């Protein structure tokens, strides 16, 4: 349910689609996006986070992985956010943690997106038995207790940032598959698709050229919201000991390590807690803005 009304094209347009048409479409989206101020604020914050991540070594006052003082030293002029459970600088870990958060959030989202969109598109386009089989796989994944899957998967692979990204990615793609499948299913019978098929276009081409552009809207919205929930998922995994492992500074790991020191050294848990909240907030607000901007029916 979505943007197909606006992007509905005549067969000729679709086949002879030009760059200009796309560009103007995107500038319209941008105009609409700008109007939703929280969305704009979210996007600004996301860009800021990306900058922090890129320039982390320049911004961070200390090394994020080295002990610089006593365990759980409270914040001071020297260490603005204090030291963590073994004496590393919390602020520096927070700054480098931005990288990890974005790598995990965007990386796992990208994996989920690629798997989800491919499977959804294939299921929706071919229909029949293929759809039936893939849909059951999607259902099964949705009905699967993620926890059991994640615990065992993490136990089977070596501990690495890569592992966390892949494990999350391959377990959360079902929502993309569902959305894309539904869209593609309804597009399949459109005139221009039928026309394309009639002039002999091959299936991959039809999917890529005529269908995926139409599902891009909902997928972008889903993806931007997903980055946030994946960052939260990573922190939940850390709570269960399955997240990104030290010394790599991950916000979830920092939060989880600070849990037992919440009474005596609350700064250890509060700093990453605030960082996670702000980041998730930023991605969600941006996602809301995109949703409004990409959904033509919500134009005022």
């Amino acid at each position, binding site marked *: 349910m979505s943007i197909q009304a606006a992007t509905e094209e005549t067969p000729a347009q679709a086949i002879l689609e030009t760059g200009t048409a796309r560009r103007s479409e995107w500038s319209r989206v941008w105009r609409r996006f700008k109007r939703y101020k929280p969305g704009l604020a979210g996007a600004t914050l996301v860009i800021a986070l990306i900058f922090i991540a890129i320039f982390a070594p320049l911004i961070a006052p200390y090394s994020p992985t080295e002990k610089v003082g006593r365990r759980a030293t409270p914040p001071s002029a020297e260490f603005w956010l204090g030291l963590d459970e073994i004496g590393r600088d919390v602020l520096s870990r927070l700054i480098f943690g931005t990288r990890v958060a974005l790598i995990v959030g965007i990386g796992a989202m990208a994996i989920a997106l690629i798997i989800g969109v491919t499977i959804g598109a294939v299921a929706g386009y071919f229909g029949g038995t293929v759809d039936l089989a893939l849909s059951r796989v999607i259902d*099964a994944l*949705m009905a699967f*207790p993620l*926890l059991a899957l994640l615990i065992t998967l993490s136990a089977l692979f070596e501990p690495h940032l890569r592992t966390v990204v892949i494990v999350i990615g391959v377990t959360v793609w079902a929502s993309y598959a569902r959305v894309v499948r539904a869209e593609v299913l309804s597009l399949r019978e459109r005139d221009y698709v039928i026309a394309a098929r009639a002039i002999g276009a091959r299936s991959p081409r039809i999917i890529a050229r005529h269908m995926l552009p139409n599902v891009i809207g909902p997928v972008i919205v889903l993806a931007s919201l997903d980055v946030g929930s994946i960052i939260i998922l990573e922190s*939940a995994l850390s709570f269960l000991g399955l997240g990104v492992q030290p010394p790599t500074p991950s916000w979830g790991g920092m939060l989880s390590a600070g*849990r037992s020191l919440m009474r005596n050294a609350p700064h250890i848990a509060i700093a990453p807690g605030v960082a996670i909240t702000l980041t998730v907030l930023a991605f969600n607000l941006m996602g809301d803005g995109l949703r409004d901007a990409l959904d033509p029916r919500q134009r005022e």
Partner: protein
Amino acid sequence: MLRYITIRLLQGVVVIFLVSITSFIIMQLAPGDPVDILIGEQQITPEQIAAIERKWGLDRPWYVQYFTWLGNVFTGDFGTSVVRTGQPVREMIFEAAPQTIKLNLLSLIVSMLIAIPIGVLAAVKRYSLFDYGSMVGATLGIALPNYWIGLMLIIVFSLKLGWLPPYGSGSWKSYILPVAVLASQEMAILARLSRGTTSEALSQDYVTTARAKGLRDRTVVTRHVVRNALLPVVTMIGYRIAFLLSGTIVVETIFAWPGIGQLFFNSIDRMDYQVVQAIVLLLATLVVVANLVTDLVYAYIDPRIRVR
């Protein structure tokens, strides 16, 4: 309709079986079994370990273990827990499930009562301060990790103020904190969902028409729009069931709530496979049924959605 339901149910059985056997195989891939927990630091010979494993049938090939267990399920026997040395899994689930259901039901009601009005109002007053404020608040509810909220609430309301018990499930007072933590997340999701559907409904032709006819906004909202706002509740319930475990486990751990989430996590931790299998099976069934019901309810509430 009946045919549709039958097909969906049959497909559901396939899905449940897929989930069940995959999770079993994955559990078997991970090393360790509950006997390692049973023996602890006791000085023991390999022969004695083997004898204990034999006693619990853990020496059999995995497929024998699985299909024996599955066969028993059809007779209502969900197996026995090794760690609880022979307690029937059915009993364990009957003890734990009501605890989790109570907690989730209460938080669902609380969050519905608070979040739906907020979501509808935010949609009606789009781009107002109220809209921004409530949506930022809702996002906070999603973004704050629930163990963080939980511990903070315990420190404030139990330790500092002394109003509420820090843990347990004995009195009505002990429900307040865990329900608050669960509801804070549900409210957030629910408020966002109902804002979304309401604003979608507001842009529908019939609403525009109703407005054009001169009906006051409030009438329009109550007559046409709230009905749509109920959809997210249905979605929410489906969502809640699918995420029942991951949603409650942390809350159950922190507040020492003896529910399914803790039972499940502990059983995975101890590799007590019959308990894990039983919970996986029940949850998968629940999700499949919930999905079906969600689709049917959608079709009923919103006639535009055809049942395919």
